[in-house]
């Protein structure tokens, strides 16, 4: 049956039939709420991109949320240090599904200029699954907006049948690292007898 058969003629101007993926993704992509997780210098360019010259609000990101329970996109803006790493992972675990991560700046991609430091995690993708990488030190606000548009394209290309958050038995929670005597250690899993 085509659209001509399904919808009676008098309602054809009021009813639209579309694939469910298209509608579902349009709703999600057009209003992604970001988590303001500015750690270092890149945080400043993130804040500047919300101001009136670059205006992130026209992309649906009206307001940078502070609480992870209300956010969908985590901007990891700045260097992730080992002392901050447990908090980063804990905040990611607290965000509700579906969630995305955007690594902003050279430090979040690979450690950046501080890669050789004893307190620096070489890249946020050692701790979290990252979707978009935005290079720069710091990236211009226009580069950040370009990264967000790529994220929108990714969201619109997803399919509801293959989305990981609806599948059963997929463990999406990431173990929180702990402070060890010479660096970060992952928690040991306790086996219950």
């Amino acid at each position: 049956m085509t659209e001509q058969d399904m919808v009676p003629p008098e309602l054809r101007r009021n009813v639209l039939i579309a694939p469910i993926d298209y509608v579902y993704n349009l709703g999600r992509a057009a209003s992604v709420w970001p988590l303001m997780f500015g750690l270092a210098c890149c945080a400043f360019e993130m804040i500047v991109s919300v101001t009136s010259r670059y205006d992130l609000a026209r992309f649906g990101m009206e307001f940078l949320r502070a609480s992870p329970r209300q956010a969908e996109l985590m901007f990891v803006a700045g260097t992730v240090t080992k002392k901050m790493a447990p908090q980063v992972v804990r905040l990611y675990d607290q965000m509700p599904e579906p969630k995305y991560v955007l690594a902003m700046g050279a430090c979040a991609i690979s450690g950046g200029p501080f890669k050789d430091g004893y307190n620096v995690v070489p890249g946020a993708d050692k701790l979290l699954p990252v979707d978009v990488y935005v290079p720069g030190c710091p990236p211009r606000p226009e580069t950040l907006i370009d990264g967000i548009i790529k994220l929108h394209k990714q969201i619109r290309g997803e399919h509801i049948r293959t989305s990981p958050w609806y599948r059963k038995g997929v463990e999406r929670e990431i173990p929180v690292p702990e402070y060890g005597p010479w660096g970060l250690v992952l928690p040991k899993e306790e086996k219950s007898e």
Partner: protein
Amino acid sequence: MATTLKTENVTINMGPHHPSTHGVFRMILTLDGETIVDLEPIVGYLHRNHEKIGEQNNWIQNTPFTDRLDYISPMSNEFAYVLAVEKLAEIEPPERAKYIRIIMVELNRVINHMVAVGFLLNELGCFFTPMFYALRWRETLMDLYEMVAGSRMMPNYFWIGGVAGDLPEEFLPMCNEFVAALPGFIDELERLLTENEIVQMRCRDVGILPPDVATAYGCTGPLLRASGVPYDVRKAEPYSIYDRFDFDIVMGTVGDVYDRYLVRIAEMRQSVRIVEQALRDLPEGETATPRKKGKFRPPEGDVYHRIEAPKGELGFYLVSDGSENPYRYKIRSPSFVNLQAMSYMCKGRKVADVVIILGSVDITLGEVDR
């Protein structure tokens, strides 16, 4: 008949991630009801090992790293480092370079104070509106930086021995226009805020720091001058060509949050004075001393040089053993030392005042943790 309730103190955590825009800073508060009994700041969440990396780089490679210390006023950090190395190696930059440096650093100070006032008002509850005004004016400065150095936020413009390149032709007209419009912007901010009832009620007599306590804690910058101590490194130990300019030291009387706000507004006006004088007297000439061939190896010895950064006294202690890398590279950052006065200022206040007092101290976590 009055009955008293038996209560206990509560310990709460204002975690490293919170809506105030200062960055990853954690405080542990011990409260009796809503009054603060004790406050313990915990830092180190942005410790990026500047000092160790500084020992692995050579002297010239360290300049872009100093931009990342206080990332809101990057040129001041470069200025301090470059002056320290020039003192160690006895290099004298040309006159035009000295004037250009002063113009950049003082413009930086104006914008830093504007952003600090904007963030302080954000914490008062005025939300983003003053911040948007401050950041709009900051955009003009970012355009000037991009014109001169190529990058918006991390300019890396100062060289050991001068500045990286001459000012392009479009710089001077744009800079003159900006400086002419700045007093109007400062008036706009003042008209909105200084006589405002809410600012007065929430900021007067909050977070008082007496002058002898401020000196004992080692505080510098607007925090110290608002308490009534007339100490400014530009006048106490003049460096570069500050002794040729005519400006005043601004002081407060009481030492509360409102005084710090007024001191910052008045310092903006003094900085505009300095920039006007520097633009008027800008000489022609070279912009950098030519460097000798070969690797840069300053003589052995140690040196400490400090400047008046917008947040306080920024100093570099450098030890050289005659090789191309520094032997010890230490940064004395103003925000790290100023933060010790937080627990003194917050005792006996309410939780909502802590955020305002932190905003008035004006820290940048990149500098606190290095």
